[in-house]
């Protein structure tokens, strides 16, 4: 479903991604790990459609369609979800209005009728329950004054509302205490099915205790230098990244 080939991306002539290859199939959970500055967040925001980076080489296809040609909103409507490491606070835009616009734009794109207010509110109630998000958070402006944990829960709530095919979770565990981490991970697990896939980007193995990956990739200096099963995460937790850095020092 998601196929990334030899992807290169740069910002201000500084090359950050230097040939990424990644194939994600339905039902799979992939973890991308790596030290700071290896390009993890760049990879996810390039796939989500951020215009900050220039793609200089390579391709990315999503169900056969050229992802890199699409504006960010079309990527989302096609079924790609990007959970932000730092969700943006937007005072003045209510969560309800934001989500209703987003869900209905998805439906319009797919040739479906927009939800009525009551249909939408019902959907929202269901999903809120599913991801255990405090119900009054949705009465506020988007992420405004949310704690770190609330922001991340809100990302998972949005994921539940939009029902994507592939979700890229960028450092979803950063800044979470153990309870919030469990809630976020439970949400992700509940949304998992054989038709969708999850790409988890993380620094630490801890999150992977809750969201168990099928594949673990190590990203270093803009390339995936190692891929293996979930046991690789444990090895990294124990030994750190130094042995990889040594091995792949340019």
């Amino acid at each position, binding site marked *: 479903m998601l196929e990334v080939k030899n992807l290169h991306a740069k910002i201000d002539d500084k090359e950050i991604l230097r040939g990424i290859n990644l194939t994600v199939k339905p039902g799979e959970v992939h973890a991308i790990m790596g030290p700071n500055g290896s390009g993890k967040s760049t990879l996810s925001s390039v796939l989500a*459609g*951020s*215009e900050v980076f220039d793609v200089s080489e390579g391709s990315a296809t999503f169900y056969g369609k050229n992802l890199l040609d699409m504006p*960010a*909103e079309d*990527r989302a409507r096609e079924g790609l979800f990007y959970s932000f490491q730092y969700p943006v606070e*937007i*005072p*003045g*835009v209510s969560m309800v209005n934001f989500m209703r616009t987003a869900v209905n734009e998805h439906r319009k794109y797919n040739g479906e009728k927009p939800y009525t207010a009551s249909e939408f509110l019902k959907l929202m109630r269901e999903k809120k329950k599913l991801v255990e998000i405090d119900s009054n958070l949705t009465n506020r402006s988007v992420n405004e004054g949310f704690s770190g944990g609330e922001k991340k829960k809100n990302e998972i709530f949005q994921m539940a509302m939009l029902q994507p095919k592939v979700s890229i979770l960028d450092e979803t565990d950063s800044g979470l205490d153990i309870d919030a981490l469990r809630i976020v991970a439970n949400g992700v697990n509940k949304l998992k099915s054989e038709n969708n896939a999850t790409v988890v980007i993380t620094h630490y193995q801890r999150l992977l205790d809750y969201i168990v990956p099928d594949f673990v990739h190590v990203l270093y200096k803009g390339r995936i230098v190692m891929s293996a099963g979930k046991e690789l995460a444990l090895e990294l937790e124990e030994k750190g990244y130094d042995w990889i850095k040594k091995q792949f020092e340019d």
Partner: protein
Amino acid sequence: MSIAGAEIKVEEKYISLFKENQGRLNIMASDVVANAREGAIKIFEDKGIPNRKVESYKYTNLNPQFEKDYTCDFEHEVFNQNLTEVFNCNVEDLEAITIYLINGWYYRKNQLPDSLPEGVLIGSFAEFSKSHPELFETHYNKYAKNEEDSLVAMNTAFAQDGFFIYVPKGVVVEKPIQIVNIMKAEESFMAFSRNLVVIEENAQAKIMVCEHTLSENRFLVNAVTEAFVDKNSVFDIYNIQNQHNLTTSISSVFVKQKEHSSVLTHNLTLHTGVTRNNIYVHMDDEHCESRIYGLYVSDKTQHVDNFSFVDHAMPNCYSEELFKGVLDDSATAAFAGKIMVRPNAQKTNAFQKNDNLLLTDNAKINTKPMLEIYADDVKCSHGATVGQLDEKSMFYLRSRGISKEEARVLLMYAFAYEAVEKIRVEAVREQIRGLVEQVFRGELNKCNSCVLCGQVSDNEFTCM
């Protein structure tokens, strides 16, 4: 053929207009109003129409507007048509007491509800100036600062009619009073409406002034409203401007408030040609509270200038000022806000903010917050910001499948939201929310309709 050195100054045109029509100007008005004219025209003659050398008009040169020729209606040609035939306002959500002014004149067929609280007077400025001379002697032309602004003096010189509202001691007018001023003429037209509001002790009233243009002529409106707000009373004035591009609107509001009173002014400029709003608030007693707000949304070549002067003359007063602007295309705007804290005004709390969102490289704002403090135990702040739409927020919204255009509307609305939420009358706030969203979507292009109820008159035209 023009003769060198004999060029007629633009002011001369208006001074001779005044001299030629002095008799006619006084047909309807009482002596109080008539007696103020001479002094006012003298000020106008001395100062002239403000040019860019006048500090408070630095960014708004009105000379080109005054150079054009306008007709006037000094004899009040009675509006013979039935207003309901050209202008419909079936207020549904908005339970209001609605009255109309036509070209600045009080519409004689206005019907007031029977349920008006006892003692409340709502009606024609001219008529009440004759029937209630004592109120006019006490309040008329006592708060307007003719000497500060020659255009205010010009209004005082030409003043004939407008609305008059009087709320006696202890009376609360629950429903908002909506005053719809309709401009309709056969050729370029100029009006000088003059309004007076007197709110006595422990009384409350909220008024909305809606400005509309109903014919495609060039208009110049120079309006002055004076308001006296006595002890413990509450007064709100919302000025909603939705006029076409050939309109020049100069609106000055002067408020004098007494102990423990609370005043709110809000200038909502949704569409205009050239707008200048003046707001003067004089806190003449301790424990006054005043809130001065504004929201301007402009595109194409519209120009909006908001000028405010908050006078903390006495101790223990609170003022809060917020003006927000969204400028698209080549729209320009100016903001100047002065907070004056007089020497004995200790324990003053005064806050001022002007935030602007520029959507293009050609849009322009000149903003000038000013604090002048002569007391030493005060808490004051002022600030101004100018920015563009936030790229990160744009990306966040788009990454959820929201189109670029829709994301833009959401973010513009989010920016304006803070100012809209300051409206204290819930029904008005609801209406304005919808209207502002329509403006951002480019859907509000009917300046001839009453924006608050969305009714369109039959000869629909766009704002050009």
